[in-house]
């Protein structure tokens, strides 16, 4: 179940999107599995149904969900959605890497950090 962090500066619909997306990518929500209805999530999280609707709508546009009229929303089995997301995230980190370079970080240092993450270390280390 999703828990919201009220100290998180991101808008709530983005938090909901990120958590659902992560669960779909991690396979915690299986392909073609039905997601909770808008009402169920609104009532459990005590969030306006519009906000939930918006999160679902955007996840659908990103390809992580599909909706069936009258039945609800389901997780996509779509590998393409995964790749689309990789593309987005890669675009997001590019300017940050450029900033690290400008701040004087050398390539090996950054690569070492990256390998550390790939070996399963925490991102906060």
């Amino acid at each position, binding site marked *: 179940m999703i828990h919201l962090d*009220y100290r998180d*500066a991101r*808008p*709530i*619909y983005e938090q909901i999107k990120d958590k659902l997306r992560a669960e779909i990518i991690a396979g915690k929500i299986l392909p073609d599995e039905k997601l909770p209805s*808008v*009402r169920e999530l*609104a*009532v*459990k999280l*005590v*969030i*306006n*149904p*519009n*906000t939930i609707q*918006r999160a679902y709508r955007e996840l659908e546009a990103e390809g992580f969900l599909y909706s069936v009229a009258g039945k609800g929303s389901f997780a996509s089995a779509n590998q393409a959605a995964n790749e689309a997301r990789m593309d987005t995230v890669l675009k997001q980190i590019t300017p940050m890497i450029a900033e690290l370079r400008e701040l004087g970080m050398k390539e090996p240092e950054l690569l070492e950090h990256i390998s550390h993450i790939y070996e399963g270390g925490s991102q906060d280390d």
Partner: protein
Amino acid sequence: MIEIKNVTKSFGTFRALDGVDMNVRKGTVYGLVGPNGAGKTTLLQCLTGVYRTDSGSITVDGQPVYENSDVKERMVYIPDELYYFSQANTRDMMKYYRGIYRNFDMDRFERLKEAFPAVDVKRPIRKLSKGMRKQVSFWLSICCRPEVVILDEPVDGLDPVMRHQIWSFLLSDVSINGTTVVVSSHNLRELEDVCSYVGIMNNGKILSAQPMEAIEENLGSMSLEEYFIQMVGGENYEVKDILV
């Protein structure tokens, strides 16, 4: 659902509402915020037909509210200062409301007992604590199956668990039945979650009215609270340092 056009209301020489326009669509949770004395309560009391407006019009589903029991039967209003008959207990008030609201849902009343375990329905309401009196008003209001819910500082006196539970009930009705909620509150953190529309009021006028989505876009890293201070206090607002 609710249309308020150019409404004014004065008390003596004081103009509490100075040309208010407001539109609330069905299924919206409309948060009304503003500093003390902005006119929020006066507006809600005009909207519920407690006050007659000096000019302008207020309609719900196209019908005027004032002295119109057909419209009022579809609305509930929880004011900041609650009123119950002096000796009445919760059961007595339930019977009273059941007599007035045609859609009163007894099944709901029984089921909601579970959510309000601390309220003894046979104890006179005036002997209950402030928070429990508020619980009773929500309990009875939800049972009226209203199309429009008007709330003035609704969470005042309620503990966080109860606030969460009550909002959850209201949002359930919003998503299933398209219930429309207008709520005035100073608890901006809470409004951010539950509202789909926010109107900021000051000096008897609505300064801005926007969907929550649009506000979120304007906010950037600001909280709704900071946004509110900027809207009401102006760009260069600072707290006064005059004690020492």
